[in-house]
């Protein structure tokens, strides 16, 4: 469709113009500033800063913890979504609303609370310490905080998809002789898998950038439990803007890749769905 069509409705120029100006001022110009700053570095310099031992260690912590958190939620988030859609229990609507708590609760509040709970003398840490399990101020603490923050992503991505599964599909599988477990493994799980992957990527992407909830519980030991965003802040505080820029470029590049992945996944899920129903 050409851009000259459909102008009977008013406000196209105004609304698009406003949106573009707003986005340019708030997003494109700042991003341009970052790119410009980064371009003052030669690639060799950039590479040296982006791959220092400390930086590599921080990527490892960030990626590892984010992956672990997303994986935990892939299991428990799927379970929660399944139970919320399929099984009746009293207070279900309240529980359903409560799942969004991590979206609504400021991350700093989550951070200090989780740190307190999982510390050696905290309500949970107290019971884990004798077993030799330390959560707070270790990389495991980061995983806990990230899992807390990202739980709703997976639940909320899966819920509508599980709701959309027609009962006939399961009835058909059952009538063809599949056991309940076979039906789940061969019929239901493949149906929700694209959404699970999307939710996983959303959660992973959010976890990578998360800062507020992590710093309180992480202990922030360089090389051990220091996440990349914290390393960026440390560099900024040392007035090492160039170093911070290089790391920010790395994170931004990863963000873009994840954003594209999410778009591709959603497109894939949508086109699969269309193919099924059409």
């Amino acid at each position, binding site marked *: 469709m050409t851009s000259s069509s459909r102008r009977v409705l008013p406000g196209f120029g105004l609304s698009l113009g406003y949106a573009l100006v*707003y986005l340019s001022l708030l997003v494109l110009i700042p991003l341009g500033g970052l790119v410009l700053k980064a371009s003052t570095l030669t690639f060799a310099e950039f590479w040296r800063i982006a791959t220092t031992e400390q930086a590599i260690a921080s990527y490892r912590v960030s990626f590892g913890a984010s992956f672990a958190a997303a994986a935990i939620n892939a299991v428990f988030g799927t379970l929660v979504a399944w139970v919320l859609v*399929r099984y009746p229990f009293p207070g279900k609507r309240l529980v359903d609303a409560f799942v969004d708590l991590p979206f609504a609760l400021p991350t700093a509040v989550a951070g200090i*609370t989780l740190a307190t709970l999982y510390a050696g003398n905290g309500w949970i840490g107290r019971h884990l310490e004798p077993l030799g399990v330390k959560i707070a101020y270790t990389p495991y603490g980061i995983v806990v905080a990230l899992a807390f923050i990202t739980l709703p992503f997976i639940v909320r991505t899966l819920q509508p998809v599980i709701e959309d599964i027609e009962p006939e599909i399961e009835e058909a599988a059952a009538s063809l002789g599949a056991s309940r477990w076979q039906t789940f493994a061969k019929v239901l799980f493949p149906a929700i898998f694209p959404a699970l992957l999307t939710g996983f990527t959303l959660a992973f992407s959010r976890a990578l950038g998360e800062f507020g909830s992590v710093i309180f519980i992480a202990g922030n030991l360089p090389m051990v439990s220091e996440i990349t965003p914290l390393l960026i802040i440390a560099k900024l505080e040392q007035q090492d803007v160039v170093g911070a820029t290089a790391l920010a470029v790395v994170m*931004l590049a990863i*963000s873009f890749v994840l954003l594209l992945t999410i778009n591709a996944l959603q497109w894939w899920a949508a086109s699969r769905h269309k193919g099924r129903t059409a």
Partner: protein
Amino acid sequence: MNARRANAEPRWVRLTLTAVALGFLALFLGLPLVAVFVEALAAGVPAYLSALADPETQHAVLLSLVIALVVLPFNVLFGVAAAWAIARFDFRGKSLLTTLIDLPFAVSPVVAGMLFILLFGARGWFGPWLSEHDFRIIFAVPGMILATLFITFPFVARELIPLMQAQGREEEEAAVSLGASGWQMFRRVTLPNIKWGLLYGVILANARALGEFGAVSVVSGHIRGETNTLPLHVEILYNEYNAVGAFAAASVLALLALVTLVAKTIVEWRMQKETAMLQADLPPEAVRSEA
């Protein structure tokens, strides 16, 4: 009862799964929420109240509210404008624009805050010019507002775009063909149709604006009584081992989060009721059946 439906798990499976899911939620989400209030009241109600009465805490509350109040109108305007352009017109680069709107969800808040340091910081692109004119953005409230704007601008747009796409253009076209001006069409037809979605987006954006930590932290400079929002103040108190103070401030934020959840849920139920009621009235996805 078990054999009632082909697609129902045995009762013990259902009970176990429900118990595990609810147990997980209670331990993982419920316990932290309870802990906030228990820790805040650990030294008794008077200590809690005096912690809240602390002038710096009160200033932080005020600053958080001011930032949210400044940011929200911009987000509403942007959300409505972007949704109107995207849901009502076809133009080149539309999908790019849609992707761009998602960007803040993918970018780390720390990186977001840093973008503004690079622009407006003492050694940033516009830093010298700003210091010449004696205007501070970084380590001052304007920078915190910018960072919060960056983090929160997608919320309203993201709610409105799918909503308006589902509603289709026909009602607005009908209004125009009946002689309505642009403003009359917007006020009498568009706005009533999107009001719940708009409110929903505002609630989410507001929660994020009040609670944002990473981006604001980078640009605030943590000047007590000046550039401390409530979440930043929580951090300061916590690092000073003032647990009661930190959790008292945190409890205010947790209460706001609960209010957000309640408001959000009410709006969701309203929207569900309305869509259920209007289901029959919604035109199919394709507004035109041909061409």
